[in-house]
């Protein structure tokens, strides 16, 4: 008993909150997870440490929130314990910007001769712009693209996909590359940010963003046929594993060389450089195996979604100047060229992006970028609801055999109900 008391007291002294006034803690929130000790994570760590070296007495503390990022960061603002710097995801930018919890960065930009907004792609910057105010400096962005494994295409003697391909072309290709029990033509993930482009490319959409409403839009005939198409690719052709099969493997099938095509963003390249080794000891996939192509489309002009992240500062941060230094540092040429070598994304800086375009794989992304549009969440507050309900609807269709129309009608009704409550 006495021992326990002593132990508790010792701990109380030992790990109270940092009161050391010499150290300034700069809290940076992003959606990184526990990590798996990869090259990319070590690069990021070096970048942080270099900043700490240049600013003695500063301690960067990363708040990694891989699950429920939006609601958890909002909750930290409500609690008054928000991070100084947060990575703002275009998919949920509106809820932070429009509720006035972020600082306007224009004053910093105007007073800082060492920073030029012109270095960045203008349409990317505009995602966080409201009138004359700017709430985030873009860090990186990526269009969602179709990746394909050239080695598997060559082995099956199937020609590589070409721009302008349609859903039917895709379906035939996926079927041709499927070897039952061994290899899938396509690998599919159920999260909505990864499949909304299929709807767009069938001339559908999910909400009317000017007045958040899903009924009549999410459950449109175009969307029903687009999702029926995906359903058939997975359940009828069996060209892609069911969601359960994906879970039972516990790896990314594409990275493992077991699926010939997949849809993802630029960040997937990190996993592909880190691919698990096959039985022959060689990596299951290498950069040379990779091809990138626009999404197949039924409309004649392929579109896709552009995900972007930028750095923002909390309005009530006590370390705004330091936070700005950090943002400037992280979005600088020096850091971005190191950071983007990892394959995480396309750099939002023109200079770095152009430099990297000499890489043939990188060059394949460039023609797709002009057709990429920001997600609804950049302008519609509460868009997370749509993404959550949308994912659940697709799960109903794929896992529980609910007819597409029924699932979408239910989802649209649910979304409208949730928007009405706010």
């Amino acid at each position: 008993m006495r021992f326990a008391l002593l132990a508790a007291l010792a701990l109380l002294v030992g790990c109270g909150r940092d009161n050391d006034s010499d150290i300034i803690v700069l809290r940076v929130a992003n959606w990184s997870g526990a990590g798996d000790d990869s090259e990319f994570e070590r690069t990021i760590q070096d970048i942080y440490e270099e900043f700490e070296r240049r600013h003695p007495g500063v301690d960067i503390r990363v708040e990694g929130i891989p699950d429920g990022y939006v609601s958890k960061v909002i909750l930290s603002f409500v609690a008054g314990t928000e991070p100084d710097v947060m990575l703002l995801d275009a998919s949920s930018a509106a809820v932070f910007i429009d509720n006035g919890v972020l600082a306007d960065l224009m004053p910093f930009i105007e007073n800082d001769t060492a920073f030029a907004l012109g270095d960045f792609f203008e349409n990317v910057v505009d995602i966080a712009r409201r009138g004359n105010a700017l709430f985030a400096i873009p860090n990186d962005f990526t269009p969602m693209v179709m990746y394909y494994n050239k080695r598997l295409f060559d082995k099956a003697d199937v020609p590589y996909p070409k721009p302008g391909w349609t859903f039917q072309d895709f379906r035939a290709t996926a079927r041709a590359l499927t070897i039952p029990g061994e290899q899938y033509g396509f690998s599919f993930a159920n999260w909505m940010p990864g499949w909304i482009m299929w709807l767009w490319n069938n001339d559908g959409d999910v909400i009317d963003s000017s007045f958040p409403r899903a009924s009549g839009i999410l459950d449109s005939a175009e969307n029903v046929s687009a999702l029926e198409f995906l359903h058939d690719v997975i359940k009828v052709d069996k060209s892609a594993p069911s969601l359960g099969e994906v879970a039972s493997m516990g790896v990314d099938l594409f990275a493992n060389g077991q699926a010939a095509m997949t849809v993802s963003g630029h960040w997937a390249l990190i996993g592909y450089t880190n691919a698990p080794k096959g039985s022959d000891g060689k990596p299951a996939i290498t950069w040379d195996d990779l091809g990138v192509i626009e999404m197949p489309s039924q409309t004649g002009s392929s579109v896709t979604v552009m995900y972007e992240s930028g750095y923002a500062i909390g309005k009530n941060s006590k370390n705004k100047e330091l936070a700005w230094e950090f943002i400037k540092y992280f979005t600088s040429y020096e850091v971005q060229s190191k950071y983007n070598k990892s394959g995480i994304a396309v750099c939002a800086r023109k200079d770095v992006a152009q430099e990297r375009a000499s890489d043939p794989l990188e060059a394949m992304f460039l023609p797709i970028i002009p057709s990429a549009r920001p997600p609804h969440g950049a302008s519609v507050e509460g868009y997370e609801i749509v993404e959550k309900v949308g994912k659940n609807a697709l799960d109903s269709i794929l896992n529980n055999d609910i007819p597409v129309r029924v699932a979408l009608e239910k989802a649209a009704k649910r979304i409208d109900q949730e928007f009405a409550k706010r």
Partner: protein
Amino acid sequence: MLRTALSYGLLLGLAGFLMAPFVWMVFVSLHPSRQPIPTLENIIPQDPQWQNYKTVLFDLNLPVDRFFLNSLFVTFSVVILQLLITSMAAYAFARLRFRGKKPLFAVFLGSMMFAGPVTQIPVYLLLRSFAWLDTYYALIVPGISSAFSIFLLRQFFSQIPYDLDEAARIDGASHFNIYSRIIMPLSKPALATAAAFTFFGVWTDFFGPLIYTNSTDMRTLEVGLSIFKNSYGGSNWPLQMTAAVIVLLPLLLAFLFAQRYFVKGILLGGVK
């Protein structure tokens, strides 16, 4: 004879059923990180990857050591403060006569019914108005009293013979003296039981730390572990299971150390 064999058969079967997931977990934790899920034939790792434990403890983005210290500090603080507060209340309920005692006790018992889900919003707002969110106060203060502990300790205190305090009172001892010099020393087993229940309850509490804290440095082991699950999008099971083993192991050791108090405590509190 047959009956004994049958009983052992049932006991072993049940033990197998209850322990199998744990054994499975340890096996998976020793498989190489980032590899596909092993099938049954390959479940026993050929080349055990003990470095998974080093990776989870030291090499990842999460400060597992900090989570552990947080859990330790919060749990010990709650246990000690709760023992103090609830034993005092239990003393009054067991051995003192005062007006309103019965209804008050009933209110305490009734309050066991609606913890968590009902009070989460107002308690959150209350902690916010104290500026306690994301501090140790938010993790400790809501737990420093418990109707369950009061109930448990009262049961025990009322079984201690009254002539002891009669004698002390004749010698002029105050109630505080009787409480601290007679009742408390005689109640060590009951206090240990209450401490054991509180320890496990607080250590494995998930809901409170989940909403009352938000910075990584304030997370407890339980919430920290939940970050692992969401980090790999349904892959990298070896590292997930490693993290789970790391969280479960200290609990298991603590349980083996404290297990006799559980049985005793349930006997005390439950049936009377």
